[in-house]
């Protein structure tokens, strides 16, 4: 079966420092994947490359059945073809209500003219309602998102990601700063999403990764060190040396 995203032989260096070194990675259309690795392993840079924020020095990033090359496309275009990204720090539009945040993210024509004359249709409102209940913010729709708690902001951002209806979700440390109960809810949302689309989760917390019950890719110094089930990689000697052993 063909892969949704195929990253092959990608390298990028910043001022001589090789952040990503001949990295290859691929993920199928409905798959959950966790990426772990020590600080500086290149996890965030990897996401930057896929979403168009950073241009790699070499290598290719191919997308979908048509194997479209993503390198050289701008961030907005990559987002429109179906790659959604959640940042490490929750970034929502704090001066706007939860409703406005979600409505802005709901998949619709993004050109200035059609946005200017946009009137929310019933299906848009229904989608906002459905997402709000999925992320547990149904009764907070009118609140400014800046007032939400840290965990609620993280969920709102995941909700905005889902509203874009992407085929691939890149999620950077979704559980950071969450309580245990919030973490469980986050796991449920991500698992649900992975039934219909590809989800890549970057995470430090091993317990959280274990709960995702998915294939794990270990990055180290910009390339893949090991790949497989969590139990498999945690028994890998290299992984123990560079990551778990410390």
């Amino acid at each position: 079966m063909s892969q949704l995203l195929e990253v092959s032989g990608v390298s990028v260096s910043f001022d001589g420092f090789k952040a990503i070194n001949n990295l290859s990675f691929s993920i199928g259309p409905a798959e959950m994947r966790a990426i772990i690795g020590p600080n500086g392993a290149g996890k965030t840079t990897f996401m930057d490359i896929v979403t168009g924020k950073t241009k790699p020095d070499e290598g290719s990033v191919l997308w979908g059945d048509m194997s479209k090359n993503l390198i050289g496309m701008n961030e907005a275009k990559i987002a429109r073809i179906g790659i959604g990204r959640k940042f490490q720090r929750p970034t929502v539009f704090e001066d706007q209500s939860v409703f406005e945040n979600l409505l802005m993210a709901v998949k619709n024509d993004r050109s200035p003219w059609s946005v200017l004359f946009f009137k929310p249709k019933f299906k848009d409102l229904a989608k906002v309602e459905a997402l709000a209940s999925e992320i547990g913010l149904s009764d907070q729709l009118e609140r400014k998102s800046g007032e939400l708690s840290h965990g609620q902001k993280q969920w709102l951002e995941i909700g905005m990601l889902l509203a874009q209806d992407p085929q691939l979700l890149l999620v950077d440390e979704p559980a950071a700063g969450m309580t245990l109960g919030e973490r469980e809810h986050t796991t449920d949302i991500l698992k649900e999403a992975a039934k219909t689309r590809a989800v890549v989760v970057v995470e430090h917390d091993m317990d959280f990764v274990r709960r995702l019950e998915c294939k794990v890719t270990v990055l180290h110094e910009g390339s893949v060190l090991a790949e497989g089930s969590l139990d498999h990689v945690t028994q890998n000697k290299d992984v123990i040396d560079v990551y778990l052993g410390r």
Partner: protein
Amino acid sequence: MDFLKKYPSLPAFIATLLIFTLAVTFLSEAYGTGAISTSFVKTLGKTLCLALVAISMDLVWGYTGILSLGHFAFFGLGGYMIGMWLMFARTKLIVVESMAAADIPATALEIKDAVGTQIFGVVGSSDFPLVWMFAHSFWAQIALVVLVPGLLALVFGWLAFRSRVTGVYLSILTQAMTLALSLYLFQNDSGLRGNNGLSGLQNLPGLDAVSQDAVSIWFFWASAFALLVTYLIANFVVSGKFGSVIRGIRDDEARVRFLGYSVEGFKLFVFVLTAIIAGIGGALYYPQAGIINPAEIAPIASIYLAVWVAIGGRGRIYGAVIGAGVVSLVSTYFTGGQAPNINLGFYTIKWVDWWQVLLGLSFVLVTLFAPKGIGGLFDLISGRLSPDRKGAPLGPDQGSLREEEAEQ
């Protein structure tokens, strides 16, 4: 009712503008008691145009977070475009009239040459430069009022936004644009009469019989109407999803990009729209001022524009209107020599000199202590509060809304 909920300040604004317009009309020399002099009617009409361009500044700065310090260039260009027709048409009427007395009827070419000598004699020329190509046609020049500022904004904005120039660098670039334009126009061979500018614009061609008393009121009405339409357009633009997107760009443009919106496209859209609004404002302003010259689009003019919006309260459209109105009227009072000098014994404060110091000081004080500006006074009445964010602004970007400016 839904409509009023969406635009809460609209009825109050329309009512205020209507009452103001009627009051001025019934106190004017042409249609009323004459309590307000014609020159003051013109000042008020000009103030309405400045409020109009302040709205465009608020859209581009207060809502989209682009601190453009070049919007007066578009204002001035609008004025130049209408000024060309006014000057050409009126000069032609005068020339034709004086030539009609001659024995042999003048040919079209002779008339054209005579008009050219009249207009360009002051810069030592008599030929019409290429830019005056459409000056004979009222409708063509009206179209240029919109097209010239719009195209300049389109080209400038496309280059600047595509390179992702933001923040203070963009402000400097816009200053450079307006400075370059004004220096170019200062040249005698720019084709727009150099530092003489275009003059006599208060005289409408073919309406010599109508006194300035009446003309001033007509322009006042036109300015009030244009302000109203601009206000409605601005409210429409900022209220819906478009408003959400541009406020998102103001607070965190990278996030908007990752949502799939073309940030550059939206910035360009707002930049061009506001340039066009500014151009229309200029086209209404300069016939009331009577004269336009390159000094009008000096960099300082655009900085004043930002000061008005800041003092009025950015990020709210009526704030921009209030800021432009109050500051420019107070400025007229102080610089017009009406304010009494203050004699301190050892030094006399002459307001003509000290007004700018006062303005600068109030700008600093407003920025530091009352970021909501004069518009914030309405929050005191309506009981709107700012969020308690311990000083944190609402987004990572430079232009983002500050805690004090936001609504809880």
